[in-house]
């Protein structure tokens, strides 16, 4: 097996026994990027030099005999909305095309402290707004299982880099499904942690009350390892929760015996791709065979989630993206006569059409006379949606659903109609509104050989339960051993 295909835990083993060096591992991944990424476009910036220097430092730590930090020498990729000091951070936008981050995001800092080797910054929808990665201002990222199809968005580059062995693992962000959807479409594991579990400091904001950073990994154990590193309180993020972080790897193998799995009727809808429903139901049946108990539940406000989400996310985005004005950093339109033109031309030229659409809609729903009808209403429905989940968790420990109603769709298929695109997130969005953790685990392939994802949703701060269930399922299946045909 080539070095670049190693999981974190496999690589860690080989690094510690000096079977492979961190530099060899990094070189192997960088070579793979050079070879295959022309077809996939997962990387926006490759930090070859810095990565090799970090790998050398990791090798020195590994050589000196002391216990190395948890990710010592592990090659990882960062979604381009996550800042790394001295590295270009575009957030997939033209407006930040030349922006060099002057500071590290907290998660970046944590990865560095854990000894990780940062291979580069990976592609995403512009400002994480999208479900297909086609909104990247540069070039859309492709699904490695079928390069005519989308990898899912917005953390498409994160999922692709992991699925195609262009990184051992990656960090993505998830605002309405942006980790889980691409994880499902690309056949990898993706976790959106509980809101407040992972710091958002240094992560370009899309919708602040929904955004959360999470791992994209080759298997569930890796997911737990990465979460161990990035989870925890950050005094620089006021929404980061100050409560102890359990070891997510410690109880991974405890099994699912007695675990109550809720199945919401609202998540198995008409018009779903039948193979998706079959695969997800089989996965649930398997967990049942391992001792879990299946409980039918209802999440009655599910059908309102997409509308609620888009109002809230667009409103927050319209304000979050006001700072891109060409004054202090980023793109500035040339030859503008006055300040008004500076703003309008800079933003008209710097932002892509989906971003502008969301800013405009977000501005509209917050404007005088519309606030109550749209924004306040959506915040109230958000309460109902959250309450649905809290009620459901009285009867179950985790909820199992599909990640998406279909497998990866074709590039261009949904571009013309934004609403159809928005509905791709129909099963993932409510989790963000409720602030809950959600895990996407591969659970099969459709007739075209495209991956299918199982979503496990947990109560706040119960990531451990999701990882335990995901791990139990994964151990009995070999989906993760299949590799995309590259």
């Amino acid at each position: 097996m080539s070095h670049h295909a190693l999981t974190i835990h496999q690589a860690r083993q080989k690094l510690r026994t000096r079977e492979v060096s961190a530099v060899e591992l990094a070189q192997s991944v960088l070579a793979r990027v050079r070879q295959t990424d022309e077809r996939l476009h997962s990387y926006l910036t490759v930090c070859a030099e810095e990565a090799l220097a970090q790998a050398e430092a990791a090798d020195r730590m590994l050589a000196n005999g002391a216990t190395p930090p948890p990710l010592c020498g592990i090659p990882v990729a960062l979604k381009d909305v996550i800042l790394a000091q001295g590295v270009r951070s575009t957030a997939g936008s033209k407006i930040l095309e030349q922006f060099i981050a002057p500071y590290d995001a907290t998660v970046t800092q944590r990865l560095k402290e854990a000894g990780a080797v940062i291979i580069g910054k990976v592609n995403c929808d512009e400002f994480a707004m999208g479900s297909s990665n086609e909104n990247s201002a540069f070039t859309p990222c492709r699904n490695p299982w079928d390069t005519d199809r989308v990898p899912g968005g917005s953390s498409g580059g994160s999922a692709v880099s992991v699925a195609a062995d262009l990184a051992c693992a990656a960090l993505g962000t998830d605002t309405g499904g942006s980790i889980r959807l691409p994880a499902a479409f690309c056949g990898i594991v993706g976790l959106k942690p509980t809101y407040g579990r992972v710091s958002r400091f240094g992560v370009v904001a899309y919708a602040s009350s929904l955004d959360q950073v999470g791992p994209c990994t080759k298997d569930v154990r890796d997911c737990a390892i990465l979460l161990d590193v990035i989870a925890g309180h950050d005094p620089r993020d006021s929404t980061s929760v100050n409560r102890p972080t359990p070891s997510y790897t410690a109880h991974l193998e405890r099994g699912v015996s007695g675990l109550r799995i809720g199945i919401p009727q609202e998540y198995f809808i008409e018009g779903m791709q039948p193979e998706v429903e079959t695969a997800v139901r089989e996965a649930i049946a398997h967990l049942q065979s391992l001792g879990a108990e299946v409980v039918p539940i209802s999440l009655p406000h599910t059908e309102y989630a997409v509308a609620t989400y888009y109002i809230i996310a667009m409103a927050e985005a319209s304000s979050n993206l006001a700072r891109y004005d060409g004054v202090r950093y980023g793109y500035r339109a040339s030859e503008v006569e006055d300040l008004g033109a500076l703003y309008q031309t800079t933003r008209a030229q710097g932002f892509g059409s989906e971003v502008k659409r969301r800013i405009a809609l977000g501005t509209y729903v917050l404007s005088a006379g519309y606030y109550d009808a749209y924004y306040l209403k959506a915040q109230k429905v958000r309460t109902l949606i959250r309450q649905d989940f809290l009620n459901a968790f009285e009867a179950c420990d985790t909820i199992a659903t599909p990640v998406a109603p279909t497998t990866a769709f074709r590039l261009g298929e949904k571009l013309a109609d934004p609403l159809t695109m928005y509905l791709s997130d129909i099963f993932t969005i409510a989790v963000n509104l409720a602030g809950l953790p959600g895990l996407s685990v591969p659970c099969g392939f459709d007739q075209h050989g495209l991956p299918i994802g199982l979503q496990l949703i947990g109560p706040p701060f119960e990531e451990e339960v999701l990882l335990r269930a995901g791990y139990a399922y994964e151990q009995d299946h070999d989906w993760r051993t299949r590799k995309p045909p590259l």
Partner: protein
Amino acid sequence: MTYESVIGLEVHAQLLTESKIFCGCSTRFGAAPNQHTCPVCLGLPGVLPVLNKKVVDFALRAALATHCTITTTSRWARKNYFYPDLPKGYQISMYELPLAEHGYVEVTAEEQAKKVRLTRIHMEEDAGKSIHDAEAGASLVDLNRTGVPLLEIVSEPDIRSAAEAGSYLRSLRALLQYIEVCDGNMEEGSLRCDANVSIRPRGSTEFGTRTETKNLNSFRAVEKAIEHEIQRQTEVVEAGGRVVQETRLWDADREVTRPMRSKEFAHDYRYFPDPDLLPLVVDQAWVEHVRTDLPELPAARRARFVHDYDLPAYDAEVLTARKDVADYFEASLRACPAAPKVVSNWVMDSVLRFVKEEKLDAALKIETWPCPPERLGALIGLIQNGTISTTIAKTVYEDMRRTGHSPEEIIESKGLRQVSDTDTLQAAIAEVLTANPDKVEAYRGGKEKLLGFFVGQVMRATQGKANPQMVNTLLRQKLSQ
């Protein structure tokens, strides 16, 4: 028809914290451009705010000092607008649930006590500064001030004249200085004021259309601008026109208000709860803690001056109107054995007159006065022990504040020490009497009023240094011989 003016003031007070409201940058004034900035206050991608506890402590002090009701759970909101000195494109402020509401400030207007009600007090971040005249066709932006904590204090439209507005603002400033949360310096912009002004026919209970006037950076500007605005609106209405609701700027040079030119974009601030900041919860224990630590307020100090120092109510009122003046009075008093009333006279007559003459009103700080209170105390002490007369003391005081020298130094170098030596005085008296035989005759003939003339002549002969009591006594003795 006669009109009544209806005025409400919006005051912004910079809080005297060390660090900014949402980041660890210094709030100090006067650094090189953009030195006191970091990713957070520059609004870089990915940054998040973390609230400075001291800002809340200070805001609570102000809320308690103005008798406000404190909101247990208040909420941060974003006020969205575009301006080059507003890095994030929104200001973090409070909107629906401000920290405090329903307070009042006691004001003396036209000799009458009056309460001006406060609508609300909330915390927010300051914007940066733009410099418009440094370069042709360009403005320069300095963000050092961005994120300095502000209190916004909004009054009800309870004010009825420009003078009343001035007196409200002075009282409010005194309060903020007393509780040590704001230095109150209007010229440097640490206290800023916008005035909402409308007029209505006297007797009417409905409000007229109001204008908001900005750029009022002195007490004089506040009063002048309001006067001008009342007059302007009255002229508009009397000419059959309508007052337009708009934001106007005070032009201090021409002493007029004019509409802001940048009004092509109508303001719609799109306030909404800031998702980056959780609600602020202030429990009773916190409020009580702040209440316990609250410094003495002007009203209490006024009462104490009357009670403990036996000062007339008028003196107490004048001395306590400003915390620095009251502090100055008490420090002077500690430095001399004189009666409080004597010290009070000195502070009111000399110190405050000087403050007024030199127009040092706002910029004046007790630590930088050329005549520190200990020196004033020493000067008064020298009168008490007979070293100099009160008249000489006045000239010594002038010298003290001009040169910064101590009273002893001035008295020594100018030889102003009072002459109480009997022989010297006798000699001077003899000279005066010899030079004026006719007046001596007249005095002895019953024109006793002439004593004053002789005293004056002796004082002149001694360049004012003679001890006046002794001159009096000796003269009487001599003339009755």
